[in-house]
């Protein structure tokens, strides 16, 4: 074992010890793992047919019962199974959109921090421009123009949310590059690629992890909002279910189970991501640790 990998393992252990001290973060992590596992194993138990309107098992808008623990929707489909199947779309879009946003943000953020002169100026200008665009409105326009496929929704969310990551990463890159060992590395002949991938990237990675975790939470909310506003194609997700509840007047009809269950799923998962992200931040950012926030 090389020295570097031993040191890495050691710091990982320390990181885990710090993280496990954040009670809320651990709770969030547990919820996340459970939710992700449920979504992954769903095809072993149920399939696409639970979302079919033909041959739906129950009568429309039945309140919760033994047969349908969370009641049924307007076509008699089981809310429980729909929520379970829909979690796949919601989580997938949340993860991938955050990934897209993180990729764009990281590349542009490191570039803006590493290069000087006009490259940095242009990237900053573009970032600032994207930062002021009202993101939900822009995502709605993008999804409406390109059609609401899963891919489009992921891109629409990713393209409108990367600027915060880019700014964060740029600030961190500037801080890292001010350290003397970067200068030493350059003196030894390191090029742009070496400096950014071997020195800057590993240093911004922890911060990136925290910010991506929070980003997933916000992407899930945005996905559900886009689906609720009807620009998403008809793939079952928590957002499209809530759209259905609105279209069929579940609120005024008092069908509380139809509104409560998908919404609680969103809130639980989003809160879990937020708690995790905040715990990560608290572990990684000494300033926050001191304030106890």
């Amino acid at each position: 074992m090389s020295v570097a990998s031993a040191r890495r393992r050691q710091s990982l252990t320390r990181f885990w010890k710090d993280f496990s001290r954040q009670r809320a973060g651990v709770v969030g992590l547990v919820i996340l793992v459970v939710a992700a596992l449920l979504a992954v194993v769903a095809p072993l138990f149920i399939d696409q047919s639970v979302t079919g309107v033909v041959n739906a098992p129950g009568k429309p808008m039945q309140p919760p019962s033994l047969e349908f623990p969370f009641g049924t929707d307007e076509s008699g489909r089981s809310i429980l199974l729909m929520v379970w199947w829909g979690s796949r779309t919601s989580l997938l879009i949340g993860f991938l959109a955050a990934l897209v946003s993180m990729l764009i943000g990281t590349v542009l953020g490191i570039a803006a921090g590493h290069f000087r002169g006009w490259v940095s100026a242009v990237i900053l200008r573009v970032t600032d421009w994207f930062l002021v665009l009202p993101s939900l409105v822009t995502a709605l326009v993008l999804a409406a123009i390109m059609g609401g496929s899963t891919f489009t929704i992921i891109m629409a969310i990713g393209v409108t949310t990367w600027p915060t990551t880019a700014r964060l990463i740029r600030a961190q890159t500037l801080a890292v590059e001010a350290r003397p060992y970067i200068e030493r590395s350059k003196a030894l002949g390191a090029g742009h690629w070496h400096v950014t991938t071997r020195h800057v990237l590993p240093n911004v990675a922890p911060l990136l992890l925290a910010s991506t975790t929070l980003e997933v939470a916000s992407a899930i909310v945005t996905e559900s909002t886009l689906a609720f506003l009807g620009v998403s194609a008809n793939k079952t997700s928590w957002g499209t279910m809530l759209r259905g509840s609105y279209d069929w007047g579940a609120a005024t009809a008092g069908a509380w189970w139809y509104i409560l269950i998908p919404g609680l799923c969103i809130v639980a998962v989003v809160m879990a991501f937020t708690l995790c992200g905040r715990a990560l931040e608290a572990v990684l950012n000494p300033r926050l640790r001191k304030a106890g926030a």
Partner: protein
Amino acid sequence: MTAPLEAVEPAASQAAGPAEDHRPARHGILRYALSKAGGALFSIAMVIIGTFFLFRLLPGDPVRALAQGRNMTPEQLDMERRRLGLDEPLINQFLNFLGDTLRFDLGMSYEYKRPVLDLIGDRIGATLLLAGVGLAVAVSLGIWQGMRAGWRHGSRFDRFSTGTSLVLWSVPTFWLGLLLLLVFGAYLKIFPSRGIQSVDAPDGFGYVLDVAHHMVLPVITLVGVVYAQYLLVMRSSLLDEVGQDYITTARAKGLRDDDVRRRHAVPNALLPTVTLVFMRVGFVVGGAVTVETIFSWPGLGQLFYEAVRVPDFTLMQGTFMLITVAVIIMNTLADVIYHILDPRVRSA
């Protein structure tokens, strides 16, 4: 609804943003404002150009979209293309679009058969009313609660406030609206759940009361979602002030706790929160679109939503540009106001 991470620490991002990039030390306030205004004009130009290409180059033919669900022969489609100037070269289309937009001619809505600008004019009042009242309530509530929570850091009130705002932060705007619809639409029928006025609305003061009555649920929804971030920012910036030397000095002078808070700590802590109100205006706009949709509030957000649903591209394009330009102007104002209010940035 979840706001980006940066919202938690606007003070830091602010200080790192304009101050560092533009070196205001050498400029006066006016020069600074002018350079910011120039930047805003550039951004607005980018929005107009970006909008044109976004709506022309992306897949999807506007005429075909318009013909969706309607019986139209290829000849009729061609005629429609000519009428809209879509048969001209792209550069001519662009120049026409630019000229029209600069003359505030946003085109005709396919769906309403009326100029987009007129439609916007009809709807903008309702949105300003809703967003204005919502913001006023959210800001005052957020600042008040954040102030109390931050001053008694770690108290039960603080934990309660942080907990509530964390939950509210995770709640999607539209779901909060649906819950209110459920509670007040199905069970407690004390507030109307749709529209801005009753069919038989009385005149004069009665009318004002009627509108206010209709506003209750939309405003609660908007406030519930946006106020959490004001609370958290106010709390954390007050926490930053509490440890400062000048607070210790104020206490050493024998000032009462209340005076230290009101006259020393809060005015300094207010700054990031005030800026945040302007900086996050785009976030409020997104909230307004959702809230107006759920409660059928006849505002700009609902108009935009309808344009997206139809889809009515001219209307979508017009409302999108208007909303974006408004947000850019508000953000620029925030920058300049921050600069005027904060002597640290001014003399930095």
